[in-house]
């Protein structure tokens, strides 16, 4: 009786959210999947009842598209790697700070997360532009200006800036669970600092690092404003190409196919990464 009542109440309370998510999340995603198989003609637009795989064939045969996918992939992978290399030590350093510095710096480093990504991209274009502040400084010191804006360097640098908090947060969370006495025990038994890091600290923060890796890779691969503002017209990434297809080429089925491919590749990378990691963990736990 009470189970039945609970079931009813559970559905009743989630009904408004469920209605909204079915109508504005599930339905539009399905419509986009359908759209990506529709025939497109530059004269008449989308042909409702006709189906084709042309868009998906384009993705794998047209070098313009697959090069953009490859570029997006290596940029995201590099950004992820840099976030691990910078974020993990930084989270560890933060966790070893005393109060009040720890919370002050934690907030200073993480709050850029809440500031509009357009503002942050604009900040980087001020620093990296042809007559930006870094080039002004180089010239004042007698050097020659370097082209940084509209290069992969600018996109990668700004993406690391945007993504770093997403790496620091999960690593920080797993560091909070770290038992300080394990470290002290290892040290008192004569382990070197490096060995403590490798044998005690790193294994315990690995879950945090791995979930951070997933978030950073997924967000980088689909990032729009950073490549849009710092990559310029020629350095396209997947998101900026989808934007072009929808709003300047007006080839919606092509744009839809790229978006679907992005979503699938993202999910695939996440799932396989998850499996790989879980496999590792089961092994290391001796199961």
């Amino acid at each position, binding site marked *: 009786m009470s189970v039945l009542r609970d079931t009813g109440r559970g559905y009743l*309370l989630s009904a408004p959210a469920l209605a909204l998510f079915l109508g504005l999340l599930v339905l539009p995603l399905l419509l986009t999947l359908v759209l990506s198989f529709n025939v497109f003609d530059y004269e008449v637009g989308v042909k409702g009842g006709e189906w084709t795989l042309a868009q998906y064939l384009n993705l794998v045969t047209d070098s313009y598209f697959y090069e953009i996918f490859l570029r997006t992939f290596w940029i995201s992978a590099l950004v992820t790697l840099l976030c691990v290399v910078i974020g993990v030590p*930084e989270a560890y350093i933060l966790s070893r700070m005393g109060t009040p510095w720890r919370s002050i710096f934690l907030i200073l480093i993480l709050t850029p997360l809440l500031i509009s990504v357009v503002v942050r991209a604009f900040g980087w274009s001020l620093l990296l532009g042809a007559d930006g502040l870094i080039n002004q400084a180089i010239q004042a010191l007698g050097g020659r200006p370097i082209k940084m804006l509209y290069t992969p360097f600018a996109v990668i640098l700004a993406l690391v800036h945007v993504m770093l908090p997403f790496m620091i947060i999960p690593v920080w969370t797993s560091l909070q669970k770290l038992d300080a006495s394990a470290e002290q025990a290892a040290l008192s038994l004569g382990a070197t600092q490096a060995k403590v890091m490798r044998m005690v600290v790193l294994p315990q923060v690995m879950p945090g690092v791995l979930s951070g890796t997933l978030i950073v890779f997924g967000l980088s691969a689909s990032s729009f404003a950073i490549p849009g503002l710092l990559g310029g017209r020629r350095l396209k990434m997947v998101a900026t190409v989808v934007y072009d297809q929808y709003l300047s080429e007006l080839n919606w089925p092509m744009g839809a196919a790229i978006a679907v491919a992005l979503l699938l590749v993202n999910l695939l990378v996440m799932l396989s990464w998850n499996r790989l990691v879980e496999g590792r963990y089961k092994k290391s736990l001796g199961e």
Partner: protein
Amino acid sequence: MSKNGPLALSFHALVVVFMLAPLVVVCLVAFTPENTLSLPWHGFSLRWFRAVFERADFIQSFYNSLILAVVAATLATLIAVPAALAITRYRFPGRDFLNGLFLSPIIIPHLVLGVAMLRLFALMGVNGSFVWLMFAHVVVITPYVLRLVIAASIGMDRSAEQAAESLGASRFTLFRLITLPMILPGVAGGWLLAFINSFDEVTLSIFVTSPSTQTLPVRMYVYATESIDPMMAAVSALVIALTAATMIILDRVYGLDRVLVGRH
């Protein structure tokens, strides 16, 4: 009691400079008296802030964003609170699926959501309408409220609820007088986080706004792709100031560290 060596501290200093540099630079350049993007070496000026307030399109976009964020965050809270209570209080088939569905907009790229909603709105003939833009935002920001309310609801002591129930309080009285006050920090924190995320959203909005419903981040994005002048720095500085103010309130009502690193 810092145990970090000099090497670690210099690394830390570099990271802090890296994280803050673009924001500090934007705020400084906003005060330049010159026509070009330069640091205000020769005195501060408010001319570019005045320039912002003379741009009717930017003012309109600011109000669009503000109203959008307030209404969307409120609607998201109104649907996320019951959903969070359903997920934490009741066992029913499909509960985990609903939880996953409601949190999924965090994982699905906003770009994909943007083109998907563009397709739906175009078929319905409502693309560019403010009301549907608002519903789109509600979907994207609901997960933030949901997560904080779920955390608050799991953490609360339920004996007061049971006592009230045994004394014959109605379900609504119970919610209004006992449950809501106890989860209020989570609800308020979730609302503010949703507000910030809606106010900053650009990738989805750029697909489903029309010139008259353009939000501030979309307006800024379009402006920055066409021209770059110190007015953009002044707008950015204002956005940073507004976000900072919201964050201070968020810190007071819920604790910024709890929102950011999820210590509940």
